[in-house]
């Protein structure tokens, strides 16, 4: 039985398949309006040591919708860390002011460290290039909601698979459920070898391709698109060429079948053309909105407001 009360949410690596399923099911019940006011009398601190408007606002909205109160820092320059206070002291102090800490920090492992320093639950809202578990939970919930199941699916991931923490965590979770994965990227931005090795160890079937045509041949239920960042390329012309190859338009969608659902963690730049937004295949705004019930469910579970 997955128990979440007083537990920190730091990494998908800490999660069993029962844990993942519990969060997805609780999110479903929250979204259906089964619970209300479950954070009443609870205070949540959002400590954003690097800016992330979208994630912070969605956490704050999740707290308000569940009847709780929220305070925090949105800008590290406004905190006493800029006066030289240590990270450890900041966390220990704030832990006495609230019932849950939500933290985003540019240093990898900061959320784990915060969870060890405080006796209240800590939720990781992104630690450098490492983990962003609430994104993975909302992705899983969206897949379950839109396709009715989390196993036996054919899922493509496209874009920057080398550096993208979102696709790494999601790959880990989808592999646990048993899905067929197709990785579509330029050769320089392929899924790292250590993740492919993990898939081999788990006996997950996957393929690595460098173009959408080949991906279309494997047949896909979902295409998860991520941004290819300009900074990864020394030569801007090379970037334009590569980015153009991995762009979803109504035309390229033709390669991938009518029932394909397209996901994206957002923000997107131009890797999905706006003309795609109005097709029934595009579910990335639904996905983004699912961040609210997902974060409500997590906050409810770790505070004991939801069982």
């Amino acid at each position, binding site marked *: 039985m997955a128990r979440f009360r007083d537990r920190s949410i730091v990494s998908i690596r800490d999660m069993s398949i029962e844990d993942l399923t519990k969060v997805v099911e609780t999110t479903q019940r929250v979204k259906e309006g089964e619970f209300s006011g479950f954070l009443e009398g609870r205070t949540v601190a959002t400590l954003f040591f690097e800016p992330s408007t979208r994630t912070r606002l969605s956490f704050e909205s999740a707290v308000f919708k569940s009847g709780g109160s929220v305070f925090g820092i949105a800008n590290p320059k406004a905190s006493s860390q800029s006066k030289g206070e240590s990270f450890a002291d900041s966390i220990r102090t704030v832990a006495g002011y609230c019932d849950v800490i939500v933290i985003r920090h540019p240093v990898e*492992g*900061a959320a784990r460290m915060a969870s060890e320093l405080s006796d209240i639950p800590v939720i990781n809202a992104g630690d450098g290039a490492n983990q962003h578990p609430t994104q993975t939970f909302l992705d899983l919930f969206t897949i379950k909601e839109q396709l009715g199941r989390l196993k036996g699916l054919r899922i493509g991931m496209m874009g920057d698979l080398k550096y993208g923490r979102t696709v790494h965590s999601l790959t880990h979770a989808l592999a646990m459920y048993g899905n067929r994965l197709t990785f579509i990227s330029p050769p320089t931005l392929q899924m790292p070898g250590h993740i492919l090795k993990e898939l081999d160890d788990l006996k997950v079937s996957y393929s690595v391709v460098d173009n959408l045509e080949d991906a279309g041949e494997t047949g896909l239920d979902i295409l998860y698109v991520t941004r290819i960042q300009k900074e990864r390329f020394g030569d801007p012309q090379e970037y334009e060429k590569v980015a153009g190859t991995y762009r979803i338009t109504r035309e390229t969608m033709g390669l991938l079948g009518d029932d394909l659902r397209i996901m994206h963690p957002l923000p997107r730049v131009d890797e999905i053309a706006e003309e795609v937004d109005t097709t029934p295949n595009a579910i990335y705004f639904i996905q983004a909105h699912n961040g609210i019930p997902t974060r409500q469910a997590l906050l409810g579970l770790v505070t004991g407001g939801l069982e």
Partner: protein
Amino acid sequence: MMDRAYKVYSIENGTVIDHIPTPLALKVIRILGLENQGIMTIGIGFRSEKQPGGKDIVKVENRELSHDETNKIALIAPDATINIIKDGRVSEKRQIKLPSEVKDIMSCPNPNCATNILGARTHFLLESRDTVTYRCRYCERATEVHADLLTTK
């Protein structure tokens, strides 16, 4: 020249760590935190059939190292052998195996890790015995262990 069976003094009581690849004897002592902890004899660069690069020996007097201590040696010297000596005789020949977790003695090679920036104490979990790979509990990167990562403080 006559063969000398023991180029390093034999001990009456304590722990003998043999077959450490040269020149890692001092590193082994640091990993075990044995500096300034009593009498030790160190031999470096012995010829060895099993170890073409030579072997080192460390003899720790009057101290029986625990399994947790000797297992740390496997991080850099997986073929090292451990003999516990009591009253001049070998009382235990011990196998070493990689520890399931490693705290404090290894540094994380990721410069953006909380252990390198925010002062978290290092803590690694064993990922693969075959490749001697450990995963950092903080930044979650997997690292193949090599002697340079082991703390020399």
